[in-house]
């Protein structure tokens, strides 16, 4: 019986994955989204594989963004990283400096190159970052699914209450007040909702005229205007009581905000243009979109992810990886990707194409994010950026809105912590 047991164990050992066949160069693409985006991506991967015989890309789902990143880091440590993956912009400086990414300059200018000038300003790595007076990093990423936050509003609700679409913070506050419906102590409809999240705080920070770091990237610069931004939310939630703070962190909160909006429990929300398809399809009311309101000026961050190629992958796989991301960012693909998902096209030629121009004529809401790009703000190219986002700002915004600490206290502590981190990464 012992023998049987050991045989079973031996049998369970090492069923290796399908052996690689001779033929096309196979490369892995690791992504971290499911649902519709996954289906669209897989369809495009298939199309890429069918369109040529030299390379074959295999796409696999790797969990949510952080699980995927953890695996990529672990894989990098064992030299089994995939050839292609995607990362959020804020993580790029640190990972680039850690040597995870392949330099793509030669590929872009080579025989299977791509026209970098055709990319939309605000979407590319070069226009996403502020290089803080230092020489810019070489090209190491291409835009994938990119977005900006926009204001979604329930046009029917606004019309019914005679509320104009707000273009400034004061107008937003006013509008939120007029749209809120209360019955006794219960609020049946909130005027405004936004996830209390780094991305939107960053927008407000810049709208108030502030910036994250000093121009040389050595110290924090957000204390005063960051407090203003956070205090705006605090007042809306606790003083006016016209803003709902969606519970949960990260995407949970975003989902609640979207669901509330669709259920007409809130009149206006800030959220990503990436949900435009979803919200348009499911709204049983007239949907309107607009720029985020300004304080001192109009400002938005961009978001989403960039394609990168792993530096440690074998050369043929890197070649395959480049071919794939070049193809994915070609005008034809960016049009089909955009139409299927609602993310913005990333090429000027795509936006100016007759196809997209006709589409925007019929669906003006899709144009909002693109037009808003001219107010896009840059992120400092600092290895500390991701840490500042995930550890210093993001987890601490809530406490102000919940009334546990004041916005001033939180920003002061955040400034101190940020300077500490910056000192370490110099």
């Amino acid at each position: 019986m012992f023998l049987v047991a050991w045989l079973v164990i031996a049998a369970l050992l090492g069923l290796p994955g399908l052996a690689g066949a001779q033929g096309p160069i196979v490369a892995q693409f690791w992504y971290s989204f499911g649902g519709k985006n996954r289906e669209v991506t897989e369809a495009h991967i298939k199309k890429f594989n069918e369109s040529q015989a030299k390379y074959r890309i295999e796409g696999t789902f790797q969990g949510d963004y952080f699980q995927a990143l953890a695996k990529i880091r672990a894989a990098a440590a064992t030299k089994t990283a995939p050839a292609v993956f995607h990362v959020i912009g804020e993580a790029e400086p640190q990972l680039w400096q850690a040597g995870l990414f392949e330099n793509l300059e030669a590929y872009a200018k080579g025989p299977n190159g791509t026209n970098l000038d055709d990319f939309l300003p605000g979407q590319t790595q070069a226009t996403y970052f502020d290089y803080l007076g230092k020489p810019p990093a070489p090209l190491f990423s291409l835009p994938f699914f990119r977005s900006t936050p926009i204001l979604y509003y329930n046009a029917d609700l606004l019309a019914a209450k005679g509320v104009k679409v707000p273009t400034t913070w004061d107008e937003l506050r006013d509008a939120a007040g007029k749209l809120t419906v209360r019955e006794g102590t219960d609020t049946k409809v909130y005027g405004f909702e936004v996830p209390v999240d780094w991305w939107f705080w960053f927008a407000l920070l810049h709208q108030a005229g502030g910036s994250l770091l000093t121009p040389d990237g050595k110290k924090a610069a957000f204390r005063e205007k960051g407090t203003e931004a956070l205090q705006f939310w605090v007042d809306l939630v606790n003083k006016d009581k016209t803003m709902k703070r969606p519970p949960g962190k990260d995407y949970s909160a975003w989902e609640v905000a979207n669901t509330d909006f669709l259920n007409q429990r809130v009149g206006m929300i800030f959220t990503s243009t990436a949900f435009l398809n979803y919200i348009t399809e499911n709204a049983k009311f007239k949907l309107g979109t607009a720029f985020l309101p300004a304080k001192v000026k109009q400002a938005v961050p961009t978001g989403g992810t960039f394609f990168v190629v792993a530096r440690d992958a074998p050369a043929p796989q890197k070649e395959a990886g480049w071919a794939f991301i070049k193809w994915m960012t070609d005008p034809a693909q960016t049009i089909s990707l955009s139409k299927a998902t609602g993310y913005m096209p990333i090429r000027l030629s795509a936006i100016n194409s007759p196809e997209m121009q006709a589409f925007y004529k019929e669906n003006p809401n899709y144009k909002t994010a693109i037009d808003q790009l001219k107010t896009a703000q840059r992120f400092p190219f600092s290895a500390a950026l991701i840490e500042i986002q995930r550890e210093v700002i993001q987890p601490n915004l809530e406490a102000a809105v919940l009334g546990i600490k004041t916005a001033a206290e939180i920003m002061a502590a955040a400034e101190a912590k940020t300077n500490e981190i910056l000192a370490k990464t110099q």
Partner: protein
Amino acid sequence: MTAPRTGAGGPSPVPGRRRRETWLGYALVGPSVFLFGLVYLYPVAYSAWVSVYTWDLVTEARYVGLENYRDLWSAEFREVVANTALYSVGVVVLSQGLGLVLAVLLNNRTWLGAIFQASIFSSYVVSWVAVSLLWIWLLDPQYGLVAYLLSLVKLPSVNWLGDHRIALGSLVLVTVWKTIGYPMVIYLAGLQAIPGDLYEAASLDGAGAWQRFRHVTWPLLTPTTLFLLITLTVASFQGFDIVKIMTQGGPVTSTVIYVYYIYEQAFQYFKLGKASAAVVVFFAVIVALTYLQWLVFRRRVHYAA
């Protein structure tokens, strides 16, 4: 958990037999211990090693000595320990207690009972992902079902998951709701194993329902109770999914429990050194507690069947 006991296995005066017993013991325990060492203790040892570095998995690890441990001794970590203890105690006491009550009520083998039993158990086998959205909606203070029911009895709405003072309690309740089927079924089995004539004898002696429970049911359920106590405690210490899916540790840090804290530090902040230090601390505490228990109960005689 109970302490390992000594002295099982009887005296073996013949030295040859003793040596064979020793050899047999090693042969039987060896593979297990090897595997435990490989898949459980090696990661812990690895964590101990990483805990004296600062490492984010990509950049060069930097030796920092005991700095991570000093960082741990903070209000944040103490809150995690407190949250974990509260969560575990809440879940174990409530689910075991209510499980017993339900089992007692269900102990009648009718078809109606079978339907109730299956219904109550159904939530145990469903995965968290499937029911998480439902719960977030149910508990929405604006228009969730719970808020609606509360309004029917003129009670104010509660911000179950959004109020940092009660979010952990909400998670305890949701966990109890989800897992109560398990102690119920186990207790039910234990109850139905009690011979009916014991109850008859007790009734004949004039014992009422409560006394029958106290003197017949409860003592005979002791092994079951112990089994559940251990299983539920271990399971509650491994609680992770519910936090990850429902609150992500929030609001603020009010629902961060042990496993979630380690996950957050390691995979969201990429502070493997700090996460590893937390692992070592928890591990050391459990080992110390268990060893203490063993020392204290060393001489205790185990009860015979």
